[in-house]
């Protein structure tokens, strides 16, 4: 993503857990063959990416981007196959 973001692990997140949570997480991490840190990071990171949906932002080469940007200025054209889509019965909203 951003070029300025560092890959060194210089930040801490402190989390307090109950005995039960501690035992549960340690057991699951061992079962997964991971350290507790790696286990928590992979689980948290996966959930964070899903929630924030980082796939929202697309990147392409300069050349492809320039070609796409150029098509934006072309006059609007109706899309024949999309007419059929809008001809389907509308879903009423309340």
């Amino acid at each position: 993503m951003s070029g300025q973001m560092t890959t060194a692990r210089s930040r801490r997140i402190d989390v307090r857990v109950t005995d039960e949570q501690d035992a549960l997480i340690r057991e699951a991490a061992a079962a997964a063959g991971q350290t507790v840190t790696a286990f928590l990071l992979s689980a948290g990171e996966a959930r964070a990416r899903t929630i924030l949906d980082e796939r929202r932002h697309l990147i392409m080469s300069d050349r492809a981007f320039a070609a796409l940007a150029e098509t934006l200025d072309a006059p609007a054209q109706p899309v024949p196959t999309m007419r059929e889509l809008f001809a389907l019965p509308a879903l009423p909203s309340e």
Partner: protein
Amino acid sequence: MSSLRLVVLSVEHELTGFDCGNTELNGWLVDHALASQKADLARTYVALSDTVVAGYVSLTTGSIRPEAAPRRYARGMPRHPIPTILIARLAVDLRHQRQQLGGRLLAEALRRAVLASDTAAARLVVVDAIDDDAAAFYRRWGFIDVPENPRRLFRKISDIRRTLEQP
């Protein structure tokens, strides 16, 4: 066939039994859709049969940008990210498939995308197809593959608006 209506997702809706045949799309609806809604990260619309979800579509915003850092641009090259409305997920429960509910959900999502861009400009609708069948579904309705981004398709919002205005 019971009549369907489209509403914004809320806590009253029965989500747990939803099965579109894809575990990722099922899981997102059950585990994340409401949280994303509350955090204003995605707006999810559900097609309801009574209180049961027959299908859903979630919309959010996104962008397309070139990979190079701005200082590398030659003069005159486009550099601003293109704002997009993203159809991030669309799914229909197995019991409601083959009845064109997917197409109807897509049509409603596109109508809302056009309205959204009337208020806060976006240039493209981008769809995130979960697999090759989904990509074929979007192509069938006139979507075009995004270069260099597999299973992402797009259409200019101006084209969609024109299609709506000239049926």
